[in-house]
């Protein structure tokens, strides 16, 4: 009898161990994805930089990889991406934060329950749809006010990307605002503060780390956004500060280059990876920064 139970226990232990190992493998697979991304990007980027100097890549002001006389300056693409991100930020950061304050401090539970899912729909709408909206609705509207607006322009793209990232700002900020304990609010009210003063001088400062993290995350999303800017902002690498002109972002270039028949193994083909690497590093840095802000400046209330 003891013998039998021992072997049963042995096989049971083996089965348990095997299951644990399989589950671990699945979790560890996610790490392989990261390693895969980094390996692919690094390998091709190194190949690219053996043909084009890093200094040219970072300082040349022309991006013309498909031309007879090739130029590989990433600056026009970088400026394009930054312009869209700044434009989107101008739209989304104030609106998102004010929305978060409204939902957390002003709206009743029922209103909040209706508004929140509605706003989250904005984040769930596919980005091609925003591209369509920018091109067929926003741009014609802009042309009514600014007739010199080009068909493809940075302003329309920034505007729709801004709308798209409102929920990122509003829901993460709202979570942060709601995590501020009521005792702080009550203390401020007790001292005679108005709701405006409580919201802007007590609640928002107390939740600042969460609010800033949501800002950084939203901007990082705007930089990585692809289809809306490809459709609406154009494909003209162009260093400009005029949002009514056509530009090209890093993401739009990647799409354009992979749609065309760029022969594999050429320098033009490797630009895909060099640009993607730049994009990856920028967004990764911003995501890490947002996590760091959250961890470093979090105010703990108990």
């Amino acid at each position, binding site marked *: 009898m003891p013998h039998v139970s021992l072997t049963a226990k042995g096989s049971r232990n083996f089965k348990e161990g095997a299951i644990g190992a399989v589950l671990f493998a699945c979790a560890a697979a996610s*790490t392989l994805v990261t390693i895969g991304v980094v390996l692919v990007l690094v390998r091709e980027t190194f190949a690219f930089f053996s043909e084009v100097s890093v200094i040219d890549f970072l300082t040349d002001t022309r991006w013309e990889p498909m031309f007879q006389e090739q130029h590989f300056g990433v600056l026009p693409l970088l400026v394009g991406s930054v312009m869209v991100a700044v434009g989107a930020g101008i739209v989304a950061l104030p609106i998102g934060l*004010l929305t978060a304050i409204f939902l957390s401090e002003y*709206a009743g539970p029922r209103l909040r329950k209706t508004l929140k899912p509605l706003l989250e729909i904005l984040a769930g709408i596919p980005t091609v749809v925003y591209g369509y909206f920018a091109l067929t609705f926003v741009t014609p509207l802009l042309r009514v006010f600014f007739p010199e607006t080009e068909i493809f322009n940075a302003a329309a793209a920034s505007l729709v990307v801004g709308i798209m990232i409102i929920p990122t700002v509003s829901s993460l900020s709202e979570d942060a605002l709601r995590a501020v304990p009521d005792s702080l609010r009550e203390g401020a009210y007790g001292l005679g503060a108005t709701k405006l003063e409580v919201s802007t001088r007590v609640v928002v400062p107390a939740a600042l780390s969460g609010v800033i993290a949501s800002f950084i995350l939203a901007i990082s999303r705007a930089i990585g956004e692809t289809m809306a800017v490809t459709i609406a902002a154009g494909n003209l690498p162009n260093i400009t500060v005029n949002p009514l002109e056509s530009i090209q972002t890093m993401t739009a270039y990647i799409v354009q280059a992979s749609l065309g028949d760029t022969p594999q193994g050429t320098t033009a083909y490797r630009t895909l990876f060099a640009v*993607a690497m730049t994009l990856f590093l920028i967004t990764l840095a911003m995501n890490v920064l947002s996590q760091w802000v959250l961890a470093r400046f979090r105010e703990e209330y108990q």
Partner: protein
Amino acid sequence: MSEANRPLGTGESTFDRRRRLMGRAFAWLCGLATSVGVAALAVLLVDLLIDGLPRLNYAFLTSFASRFPERAGVKAALAGSVWILGLTTLIAFPLSVAAAIYLEEYAPRGWVTKAIQTNIANLAGVPSIVYGILGLALFVRALGLGRSVISGALTLALLIMPVIIMAAQEAIRAVPSTIREAAYGLGATRWQVVSYQVLPMALPGILTGTILALSRAVGESAPLIMVGAVGFLAFTPKGLSDQFTVLPLQIYNWVSRPQDEFRELAAAGILVLLALLLSMNAVAIVMRNRAQAQR
């Protein structure tokens, strides 16, 4: 007492009055900001309905893409999206749930677990187009899968796995630990606890998160452009190695043509895509409500 209960509004100074008015203005400002998002959503939907509804009919759903706008439809794209949806689910769901179970129920507290967790959080923030580059280099080229349905599905599976893992972790974490302790107390093994107790309770939450992640995959187009899906196709995929297109790419293809007729087709295609997404989300909401009602 009666002195203290005097209404505060009486004898208001100009300073207090300004504070009160500022407060009211701020409340309006916040309400206005909130309505911007809602209004944008409404304008977007109305614009789409006006542009796309006239084109939307049965023939649109059952015709292939065409050079002639009046004959064009979304058959290939709809079939491709369903293929991609099915395959991506098959690949991403089991792997993600297994990873979530490991991280919540098995993983020892240590740097390995912490590294995996941080990595997953960071992967969720990587732009989708970078996954497209990985798909291109890994699945299309290195593994020789070509510009096929399976390359597309694998790429999208990698893209949404971090999202499903994090949602599943949250659902598993929400299962009360008393349930686990009771099962362990009765002599259950870890796997028995997980498979008989934890998973059934966490399943609605896991499924909700999975459906939301899948609806993201259905709306994705950038990574699929990278792995070689095309915007113009006159057949539906029959197998894993066939070429394919999906709804968002078909829409992109139509949007990028200058003629108004194709823009209308794009709007009609968007309506089909949104209908698909809406029904997926409805399923998710029903499941969430049912799960909440059970508790």
